[in-house]
């Protein structure tokens, strides 16, 4: 039924959810699938934002989702950890599998499953969303101590390690208001890492930053990608995607149009829509 409403995108590769052609070699560092999105649809009212998305992300893989605003990429990301309850479809993160259930979204078992997924998938936001009433360190220890019951000493050691990793250990006792946007986002990354998630979801992490602050955040993300952190990144930073992505996913009108290695999707796209998007994007 939804199929009929789709615009004709020409020959779409049928259900190549992993993005790697059958028979072709996987990148050697990539492991088993850890995130699976199946037949995902999302309506906001009558607005059909996701129209059947299938996506598989493997361990240690960095997947970057590109597409124009309104294409559904942010909604897809927010559906993976159920900040938006999908209307139809399945999500699986690190073995926790959950079907969209908008009618019983607030039921206890559903909420508990969602929490299990969220513990495995850390999220970074465009607006950082650090807790302004807590110091940098407390931002990082709050969830480990209160959610996963890590003892305080251990949580502090862990937080300091990750703050050091993002280069902000000396800011541990500052409040977020005293940090620049770039520093805030780096602290947010450390905060997410403190929960030791299996995958990190980045929702346009540099879109709210002044241009001169974008680099420091991308640098941290690139390090993470090279260390083999599994990540799904919604981004407009094409150069970054080119450098750090294992796979680029192009979305339009709520479906995945094309995906593959960055050099292929970004430099030699197979689909007209991708070409259009990239041309317009690079023209700006």
């Amino acid at each position, binding site marked *: 039924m939804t199929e009929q409403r789709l615009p004709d995108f020409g020959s779409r590769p049928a259900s190549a959810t992993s993005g790697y052609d059958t028979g072709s070699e996987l990148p050697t560092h990539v492991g088993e699938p850890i995130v699976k999105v199946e037949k995902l649809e999302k309506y906001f009212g009558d607005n059909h934002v996701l129209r059947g998305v299938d996506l598989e992300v493997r361990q240690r893989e960095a997947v970057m989702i590109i597409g124009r605003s309104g294409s559904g990429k942010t909604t897809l990301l927010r559906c993976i950890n159920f900040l938006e309850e999908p209307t139809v479809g399945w999500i699986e993160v690190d073995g926790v599998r959950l079907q969209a259930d908008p009618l019983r979204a607030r039921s206890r078992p559903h909420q508990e499953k969602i929490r299990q997924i*969220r513990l495995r998938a*850390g999220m970074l936001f465009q607006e950082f969303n650090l*807790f302004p009433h807590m110091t940098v360190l407390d931002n990082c220890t709050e969830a480990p101590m209160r959610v*996963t019951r890590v003892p305080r000493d251990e949580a502090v050691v862990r937080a300091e390690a990750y703050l050091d990793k993002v280069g902000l250990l000396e800011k541990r006792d500052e*409040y977020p208001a005293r940090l620049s946007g770039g520093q805030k986002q780096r602290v947010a990354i450390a905060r997410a890492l403190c929960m030791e998630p299996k995958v990190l979801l980045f929702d346009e992490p540099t879109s709210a930053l002044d241009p001169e602050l974008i680099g420091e955040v991308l640098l941290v993300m690139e390090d993470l990608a090279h260390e083999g952190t599994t990540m799904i990144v919604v981004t407009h930073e094409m150069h970054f995607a080119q450098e750090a992505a294992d796979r680029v996913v192009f979305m339009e009108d709520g479906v995945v149009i094309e995906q593959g290695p960055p050099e292929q999707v970004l430099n030699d796209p197979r689909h007209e829509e991708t070409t259009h998007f990239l041309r317009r994007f690079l023209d700006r």
Partner: protein
Amino acid sequence: MVAGVGEFHRPQVLVNIEKAQAAHRRRSRLIFLGVWIAILVGIVGAFASTGNTDLEWIAEWAPFILGGSGITILVCVLSIVLAVILAIFGALGRISRNPVAYAVSSFYVSLVRGTPLLVQIYIIYFALPTISPFLILPAIPAGIIALGFNYGAYMTEIFRAGIQAVPRGQQEAARALGMPERLVFRRVVLPQAVRVVTPAIGNEFIVMIKDSALVSIIGVQELLWRAETAGRPALNILEAFFIAAVVYWALTIIFSFFQGRLENRMARGDR
């Protein structure tokens, strides 16, 4: 005259403008003070000219009446604490998806806002004990409960607004870290909401200082009760109530000063 490096030679016009503005400010302040003093002198003079003002009585009884301000402040502090607790739960009910919680809290707000505080005080102190002897309360607890219950309803809306003023992203970030809803509210939303509403709580406290005079009618020995008790036997009603009024006035001025400072600090805040 040649300005040195890094020096800015200010044109005479600017200096003159500044001088004129400073002079105007000084003059305004003087006039303000003058008018206040004139009005005060007028009022005091009018009372004094009746020849009934008994200065000796004032000297004798002012300390007794003034002593009531301690009870007034005690009652207000405890009442505002009770009101804040009720307001938090009231606000939670008002934004709850649970229809029972929403109904209960709406009922509370409607009932309290729809009836006079004086009637509520009468009911809690005089009427409830007729239902059961267990509901007999000493005057001070009864007064605190009545004031707290009343202000809790008004402050419910303040807290609701405060909670809704916390950006949505804060809850999302907390949820994304795996926090259960209860923890999200207690550790992330509530502390930020409290910061938002703190100046408003201060304001309510100042209003309450004046409303607390009502509990004198059930025998709480606060400012007004003491003024009445002291003034009535010797028929020094004028002096007694005059003292009470001045003390209430002074209390509100003092607490307004602190409240203003609090408000400034919150506005500057480190958000």
